[in-house]
């Protein structure tokens, strides 16, 4: 253990030295405190309740969604105080989307479209399933609306996706859905 610490210290010293020599004019008073990019997703905190992003990251059924959120640069926003309701399509739900379309959406050229679709899955307000009513219209982050319908105890969105589970998070709630919601075409 002691050896390890020394090794680490030595490594740190070397790297710091390398760092200061390459940036000779960076004076000692400029302490590094800021992450270079991103926001609250970089906060190191394994103690607090997980936010919607961390919950999604921790779910093996949501790896497509998480990859899409990263590509759409929505991780910073969703790590914010919220409160958010995220309708989170499962990997299986994404699998129903035409593969070529999905692949295209993951390219930088289509980032705006991807953002639009993903923002259509988020509303600013923590809506427990109990708060959702048949016929209720939800204003989503992208500016379009989603309509809720309830039949035989099943909560559906736009008559195309069903809530299959709900997971509370520190900054809102995730409703896992079995379909991808597509914003109305304009």
């Amino acid at each position, binding site marked *: 253990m002691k050896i390890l610490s020394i090794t680490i210290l030595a490594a*740190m010293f070397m790297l710091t030295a390398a760092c200061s020599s390459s940036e000779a004019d960076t004076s000692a008073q*400029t*302490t590094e405190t800021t992450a270079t990019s991103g926001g609250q997703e*970089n906060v190191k*905190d394994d103690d607090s309740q997980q936010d919607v992003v961390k919950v999604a990251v921790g779910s093996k059924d949501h790896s497509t969604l998480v990859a899409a959120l990263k590509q759409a640069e929505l991780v*910073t926003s969703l790590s*914010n105080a919220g409160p958010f309701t995220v309708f989170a399509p499962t990997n299986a739900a994404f699998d129903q989307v035409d593969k070529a379309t999905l692949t295209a959406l993951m390219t930088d050229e289509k980032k705006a479209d991807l953002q639009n679709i993903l923002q259509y899955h988020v509303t600013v*307000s923590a809506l427990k399933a109990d708060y959702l009513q048949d016929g209720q219209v939800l204003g989503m982050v992208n500016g379009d609306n989603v309509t809720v319908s309830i039949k035989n105890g099943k909560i559906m969105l736009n008559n195309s996706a069903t809530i299959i589970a709900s997971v509370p998070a520190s900054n809102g709630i995730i409703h896992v859905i079995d379909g991808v919601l597509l914003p109305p075409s304009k």
Partner: protein
Amino acid sequence: MKTNLTKILALLLITGLVFQSCKPKNAGNASSSGSAEKAYVAPGKYDEFYNLVSGGFSGQMSVYGLPSGRLFRVIPVFSVDPEKGYGYSEETKPMLNTSHGFVPWDDLHHTELSQTNGEVDGRWIFGNANNTPRVARIDLASFKTAEIIELPNSAGNHSSPFITENTEYVVAGTRFSVPPDNANGDIPIDTYKENFKGYISFISVKKESGEMDLAFQIECPGVNFDLSHAGKGKSNGWFFFSCYNTEQANTLLEVNASQRDKDFIMAVNWKKAEEYIKAGKAKRIPAKYAHNKYNEKTHTATSEMKKEVLVLDAKALKDICYFIPCPKSPHGCDVDPTGEYIVGSGKLAALIPVFSFDKMLKAIEGKQFDGSFEGIPVIKYEAALYGEVKKPGLGPLHTEFDGKGNAYTTFFVSSEVVKWNIKDLKVLDRAPTYYSVGHLCIPGGDSKKPNAKYLIAYNKITKDRYLPTGPELTQSAQLYDISGDKMEMILDFPTIGEPHYAQAISADLVRDRSIKFYKINENENKYVTKGEGQAKVVREGNVVHVYMTSIRSHFAPDNIEGIKMGDVVYFHVTNLEQDWDVPHGFAIKGATNAELLIMPGETQTMKWEPDKVGIFPMYCTDFCSALHQEMSGYIRVSPKGSSVPLSYSLGKTKPIAKN
């Protein structure tokens, strides 16, 4: 094997960390030495700007220097401040009087500097009390709260204290609509739609003295008035208020006040309102509200309870208020320096609408209405709309202006400040904030003449930005240099309370007006002692008045005997110093209030009711001199009915003063 793996991982981690910290920082980062220099003000040098920042739930206002971010003063406004004796001394207690009695705390959200011809003039700054609705005026010569006026018929005074371009009026709007004060309030809460009203208040400000008076109120439908700004230049004579909860929900607003696609900006023609008042169309309605003033000569506050208010009915008068639809719970309501563009920031909206004042006037003339809401005409959205900033960011809140045709809007959800051009509505630059920005401030950024060298973002969340201090962390301000095309973060500093809106002003407009002390021969306090020879102790039944002086480095008198259990003792301490930066403090062991902090030439009074027999030391609390530690004395408290005669002395014993 495991150890080796751990070792390798640890090394990799550290390598990563160190390399990451080696990376050249991007524009949003304050850590490059070039940026640090921009915020550096050498010891002994003055800052370029005063930054007057709301203290949020501290109830106070704080004064920082820019660009250094150094904190100079916390001005007590709506909350007691034991450090300064504010709300504890007999002279300042009336400042916190309300129709509910003495209220020791409030929540100050917004600050607004007085203006002349639409430019900040450095005379006063106003602050709003959000909880028990009030507006305060702070004098920028003394940096003290000079006046507080309460607002009847209101609750949650949020859209305040914004002013007209010559400080004719300070406004206030009720965030929580309630039944009017003189109506029966003992009604079911779910009768909101029928019985709850939203009042907006126009407080007049006297040109020379700054004295406030509640000129009139306008009764409007029950909604939540959130923020406001006056028209300026061409739109002078109008005031604009954002409103949310046009659903008129009274429960779970998080869900129920977010149902409609559009809420409103309410445009108020206050010149028209003035005409109606002249024409006798306003009603005098019984009301009860406190008006508290601090007199600089007597160094004493007085509280007057007012009995009525002039009220105009927006619905009946038809043409003083108009609603403009504005997407999704508008929060910020900001008017550009030309007065033509009104920016509404719908906190749940995916775009920022910019309304045109000219188009709005035409729409009103041409009656391009989309029906009415609770009897108030609703202007067609497109008829008043100049254009929309598309996809600017997530969660727009507030906008300030640089006077060069650009607007800067904060986005809470996406934690950023976005610069955009007002004419073509194109986004020009983005800068991250750490984290979750609320308000922002540019010096003069809501006036006709911004002085746009810096922009300050006020953040709600700091999480890992500073050394942790348990569950409660500081809020922060982040300073950006906006003199170039791109915003560059140059400083990040913690703030007191929770900063909401702030104002900044060139130090040149304030610095030279700052007073250094109060002239002792102008002190008209009822209990002033203008020299040590006049120091005395006077008994009136069980009330004892101690006329005391303080000067480096003693009190006169400093030995007092003959105080008895059951006495109520008033220490009227006059600071005889006539020198800059020499306040004296005064404290007594066991006193259940706070210290006095007495400025040079000022008199302040502590009320003391001794709780037991014995010797009580008193001393100066503000390090005043080399013999500060010697600046102390004793008070002897004897049992009730004791024969110990009243006596007082400094250096020697004097006979009892006769009444």
